[in-house]
C-alpha cells in the first residue's frame, strides 16, 4: 500500500493561553512512501517524527494537508478504519492477557464479513507468532518476557490483522545494545517477508541507515532530506543532515573559497571549481582523509586509536569547529603516536561545502 502525505501540517496550540504561541510540530510535509518499502523517519527529539507517525495512524488529526493510502483519502478516517498496525514505543501490551490473547485481541474485534472462527484466529495467531519467533511463549504473560520478546509480541499483535501499513514508534529504544542489533535485523526480515509498507521512527541514525529502504531526515518539523540511506549520507543537502548522519560524526571546519580553491586556515587544501569566493562551512567525513607525506592539510596529532582493520586518527586543527578532528584511515598507513603532526590529502567526494548563512550545500565539480 502506497502512502502519500501531502502538505501535512500539525500545529499544537500553546499551553499559555494569554501569550498566543503555537508549536508547529510538523510543517508542510510532502512525501510518498512507495508500496512495500521500509521507511525510517529520522531526527532529533522534538523534530515532529512521532507526530507524523501518529497522524498516519490517525491517533492525531493533522491541522492541514492530506494523507492517502493508495488512492483512498484517509485524512478524516478514524484510526480503526485505516487498517494500520502500530507498535508503541513501550509496546502497550495488555498486562493481564497472555501472549496468545494479546495477539488474538485485534482479531476478536473483527465484525461483519471479516469475522473469524475461534480456530481460525488461533491458527492465524500462531502463524504470526512463528513469523516473529515467539510461538514458544504463547501462554506467558508480558511481564514474564524479556524486552526483545515483548517487542516481538507487539509486532505480532500489529501484524496479525494484516494491516495495510505497519507503523513502529521508536521500536528499538527500550532494548539493550545487543538486542537492538538483533531486533533491527528481525524487523527488516519480517518486513521483507510480509511486504507490508512500514514506517518507523527513530532518533538513532545508525538504526535508520542500517535497515531502511528510504530515510526521511527531519528537523523542527521540516523535512530536510529524503532518500536512500547511502545517498543521503554521500550527498547531504545541508549542514544539519551532514552532521546528523554518520558515526563518528562529520568534521566541520570554518573555511574560505578563494579563486576556486578551498582554504582551511592558511592552507589551500582542495580545488573546488565552480564556487564563487565566499566563506563556507566545510564538512569532511572521517573517511575522507588520506594520510600523505606532502598532504595539503596539516593537523597536530593527539592520538591514534587502533581498531584493528582501521585506525582512528585524532588531531586538532585551528579551523575545526569540533574539539578534535577525527579521521578513519586504513591500518596500512603507519602513523606513529609520537609524531607532532600529521598531513592528509582529502577525497573530494567526501568534502561538502555549506553556505555560512543558510547552511545549504554548495556544490562543486568533483574531478
Amino acid at each position, binding site marked *: 500500500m502506497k502512502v502519500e502525505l501531502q502538505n501535512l501540517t500539525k500545529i499544537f496550540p500553546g499551553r499559555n493561553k494569554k501569550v498566543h504561541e503555537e508549536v508547529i510540530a510538523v510543517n508542510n510535509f510532502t512525501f510518498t512512501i512507495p508500496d512495500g518499502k521500509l521507511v525510517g523517519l529520522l531526527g532529533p527529539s522534538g523534530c515532529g517524527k512521532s507526530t507524523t507517525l501518529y497522524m498516519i495512524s490517525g*491517533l492525531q488529526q493533522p491541522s492541514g494537508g492530506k494523507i492517502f493510502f493508495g488512492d483512498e483519502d484517509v485524512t478524516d478516517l478514524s*484510526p*480503526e478504519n485505516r487498517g494500520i498496525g502500530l507498535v*508503541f514505543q*513501550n509496546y*502497550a501490551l*495488555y498486562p*493481564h492477557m497472555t501472549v496468545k490473547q494479546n495477539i488474538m485481541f*485485534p482479531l476478536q474485534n473483527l465484525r461483519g464479513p471479516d469475522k473469524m472462527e475461534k480456530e481460525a484466529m488461533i491458527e492465524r495467531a500462531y502463524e504470526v507468532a512463528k513469523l516473529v519467533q515467539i510461538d514458544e511463549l504463547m501462554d506467558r504473560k508480558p511481564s514474564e518476557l524479556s524486552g526483545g520478546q515483548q517487542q516481538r509480541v507487539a509486532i505480532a499483535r500489529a501484524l496479525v490483522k494484516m494491516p495495510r501499513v505497519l507503523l513502529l514508534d521508536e521500536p528499538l529504544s527500550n532494548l539493550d545494545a545487543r538486542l537492538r542489533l538483533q531486533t533491527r535485523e528481525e524487523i527488516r526480515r519480517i518486513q521483507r517477508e510480509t511486504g507490508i509498507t512500514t514506517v518507523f521512527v527513530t532518533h538513532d541514525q545508525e538504526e535508520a541507515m542500517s535497515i531502511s529502504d528510504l530515510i526521511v531526515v527531519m528537523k523542527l518539523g521540516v523535512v530536510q532530506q529524503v532518500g536512500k540511506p547511502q545517498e543521503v549520507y554521500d550527498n547531504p543537502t545541508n549542514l544539519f543532515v551532514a552532521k546528523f548522519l554518520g558515526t563518528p560524526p562529520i568534521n566541520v571546519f570554518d573555511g574560505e573559497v578563494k579563486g576556486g580553491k578551498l582554504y582551511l586556515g592558511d592552507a589551500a587544501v582542495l580545488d573546488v571549481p565552480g564556487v564563487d569566493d565566499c566563506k563556507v562551512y566545510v564538512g569532511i567525513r572521517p573517511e575522507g582523509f588520506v594520510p600523505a607525506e606532502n598532504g595539503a592539510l596539516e593537523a597536530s596529532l593527539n592520538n591514534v586509536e587502533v581498531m584493528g582493520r582501521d585506525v582512528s586518527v585524532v588531531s586538532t586543527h585551528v579551523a575545526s569547529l569540533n574539539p578534535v578532528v577525527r579521521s578513519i584511515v586504513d591500518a596500512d598507513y603507519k602513523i606513529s603516536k609520537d609524531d607532532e603532526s600529521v598531513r592528509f590529502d582529502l577525497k573530494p567526494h567526501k568534502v561538502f561545502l555549506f553556505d555560512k548563512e543558510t547552511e545549504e550545500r554548495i556544490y562543486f565539480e568533483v574531478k
Partner: protein
Amino acid sequence: MANESVATKSYPLYEARKKVGAFLRKIKFDHWKGWIYLSPAIVLLLIFTAWPIFNTVRFAFLEKYSSLADLNPDITFEFGLGNFQYVLEYQYFKDCLFNTIILCVLTVPISTFLALLIAVCLNSIKALSRFLQTIYFLPYVTNSIAIGMVFAAMFNIVGLNRADINASTSLGIVNNIIQFFGGTPINWINAGSGYWENIFVMVVYIVWNALPFKILILLGGLQSVNKQYYDAAKIDSTPKWRVFTNITVPLLSPMIAYVVITGFIGGFKEYSSIVGIFGDTMGPPGAKGRLNTMVGYIYDAINGSTKQYGRASAAAIILFLIIFAVTLVNLQVSKKKTHY
C-alpha cells in the same frame, strides 16, 4: 597454648551477663530507643484496642455475666457458650443479621458498579472535570446523619407519626415525582410502611453515601492507567464495551477488589445510616427496631436496661467472624481475578 588456657578459664558472672545480653538482643530489647518512640502508640493501642478486644472475648464466654458483679470480686462466673447460644437462637438477633446481610448484598455490588461507571465517565470528560469530581466527592465530607435526614424528607417526612392522616404517606419529593408521572404515591418510611419499601430507601441512601469514596479510588486507578492501552485498542477497532470489560476492568481490578472488600467490611458494620433515616428507633414509627443491624443490636444490648455485656460481646464476635470469613472469600476470589 596460651590462648587455650585463657579460653578454658571460666568467669561465671561474665558468662551469665553474656547470656542475658544475648537473650535481650534476641528479643530486640536492646533496641530500646525504638521502643520508646513507639510507646505512645503502643500504650494507646493497648488501652483502647487490645484491652477491649480481650474483654470482649472474656465477656462472651462468661455465663450470665453482669457488670454489677465487678463491685464484688467474690462473685465468679462460669465459662461457657451460653451467650452465643442465646444470641443465635434469639429471633431479633436473626432479624438484625438478615437486615445486615440484605443491605450488604444489595448495596456493595450496586455501589461498586455505579462507582465504576461514574468514574469512567468522569475520566473521559475533559471540561469541568475538576468541578464534577468535587461535586461527586461532596457526600463523603457531609455528615451522614444530616444526609439521612435530607433523604428521609425526600421520601416521606418521618417522625410525624401521623398514620391517620392520608397526606403523610404521599409527602416527599420522590412521591411528588411519582405523582407527576401519574403513579400512586408510596408510603416509603412512615408509619405503616412495608419492609421492602424501607429497605429500598436504605439501599438508595447507602449506595449514594458509599459512592464518593469508591469513585475516588477508581478514578485514581483510571488516571494511572497508561493511555497507550486505549490507543492500541482504538487502532484495533475495539468496541467500547469490549474496551471496558477487557481492558479497563482488568487493569482496575486491584482497585475494584479493594473497594469491594472495604465495602463489605463497612456494610457489615452498617448502623449510622439507619439512624440517619429512621432515628434511633431503627424502624418506622410503629415498627421499632425493624431495620436494626448487627452493630445496632450490639449497641442495644449494651445500652438496654439490662446491660447484657455477654450477649453484646458474643454478637460482636459473631460479627467479627462473619466479616473475617467474607473477607477471606473476597481475597481468594480476587487473587484469581485481579492482575497486579
